[in-house]
């Protein structure tokens, strides 16, 4: 058993490359989907009924789809419509589009929880439209939603594991390739799970730090 972990250490480059891919895919998609989610949330809360309803349908339908099926559709389905990207790009796009909907829903919930007086004061001071959203609504909404956003980032890290099935060389893919080559599934997958855990604990710590700063601000 111990030699198996020795082999993992010996072949750690493969695993670390997968870990790096997981990290970058998760970080990039978290950042971009947060921004896109903010814009979608603004559309959801817009006074224009058509806009808010249409966005609502989009966001709700994205939340009905399992991520793996969505990733498959982006990878194998889009080429039929002329859009053919490599697996990394497909994975990133899938993660971003998918999680933008969830981020939008989170931010909308936080927005609803904001005190009405603050929003009215913002309007009274002449903030409308994009400026209103960007400077009055988003900062407190995002800070209020920090724990939920942290959970969503953890969900992104876990969803990235599905991308192994569309050939993205992330952590689970690296672990699978490793165990197929050296015949040591236990050491391989246990190592992968521990690395995922480290990533997620890191996110939780970060969320705790940012949350503490948010409290200070308030």
């Amino acid at each position, binding site marked *: 058993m111990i030699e198996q972990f020795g082999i993992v250490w010996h072949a750690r480059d493969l695993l670390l490359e997968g870990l790096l891919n997981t990290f970058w895919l998760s970080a990039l998609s978290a950042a971009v989907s947060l921004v896109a989610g903010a814009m979608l949330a603004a559309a959801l809360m817009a006074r224009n009924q058509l806009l808010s309803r249409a966005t609502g349908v989009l966001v709700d339908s994205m939340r009905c789809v399992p991520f793996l099926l969505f990733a498959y559709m982006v990878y194998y389905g889009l*080429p039929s419509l002329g859009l*053919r990207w490599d697996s990394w790009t497909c994975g990133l796009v899938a993660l971003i589009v998918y999680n933008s909907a969830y981020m939008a829903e989170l931010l909308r919930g936080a927005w609803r929880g904001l005190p009405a007086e603050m929003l009215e004061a913002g309007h009274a001071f002449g903030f409308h439209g994009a400026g209103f959203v960007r400077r009055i609504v988003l900062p407190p909404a995002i800070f209020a939603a920090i724990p939920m956003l942290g959970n969503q980032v953890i969900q992104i890290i876990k969803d990235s594991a599905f991308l192994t099935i569309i050939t993205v060389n992330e952590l689970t893919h690296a672990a699978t390739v490793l*165990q*197929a080559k050296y015949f040591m*599934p236990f050491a391989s997958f246990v190592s992968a799970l521990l690395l995922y855990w480290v990533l997620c604990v890191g996110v939780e710590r970060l969320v705790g730090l940012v949350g503490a700063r948010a409290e200070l601000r308030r």
Partner: protein
Amino acid sequence: MSTIVQTRRFILRGAGIAVAALATGTLGGIRAASAATLDEIKKRGYMVVATEDDYRPFEFVQDGKPTGYDTELLGILRKQASFEIKQEIIPWTGLLPGVDTGKYDAAVTAALITKERQQFLDFCSPVSDATVYYVKRANDDSIKSIKDLSGKTVGVQAGSAMLQALPQLQAMLEKEGGKLGSVVQYVSYPEACQDLAIGRTDYVTNTVINLQLLIKEKPGVFALGQPVAAKTYIAWAVKKGNTSLLEFLNGFLAAERKNGEMYALQKKWLGQSFEDMPETWTIT
């Protein structure tokens, strides 16, 4: 006692029993894992073998039923064996390691004999020839010979011997001043070929038998290239050291060669028969 409370109690009790039954059923699917020798198999009454779920024409699922060359050969064994043979159909990357960890007694699948695998597995008598070729898109004129593959993207199955054989292709390319392009690893070959048709990869390597079938099934989409690795054979495998089971399976396979059944099945599924396969084949 009111009927609402009674009904609720009844539902809760029923749910509790259902959950308990479910848990027992799930736990009942757990058994001790160790590669069984022939005697142990005979004593417990069944052997567990693993086949791949989508590797035409050797083993695949059609209309819900497992079929293919290996599956039919296994069917003959089923009729002759004194014990039950349970067939598990799983994705490729876990199959051979599963034999090594004792999850399966034998891999009844199209496994290419390679030096690396010989460290963990004992291969049975070969069941087919297995020279690895490459296939490209039929309308791709940029690839006419092996040296044109330099720098191009190749698709293979993760954990396959074709992936392990890529260094041989790399050596061939480097001899002519080229280099191996990037490698994309797929869960199974149908997905690799689908991507080749889409244009994400430039060529896919697989045994000539698989590729010939692919070209027949999808006329006009693909074209066969040249061999990219040294000749080897396809065989079933057992855990290294499981001599009793190895001899049992080899005995069966030798008998099927002698009575011509194996060659008939090869003609049916693989398109040709390989009468001059060696009885055993190890790479040194």
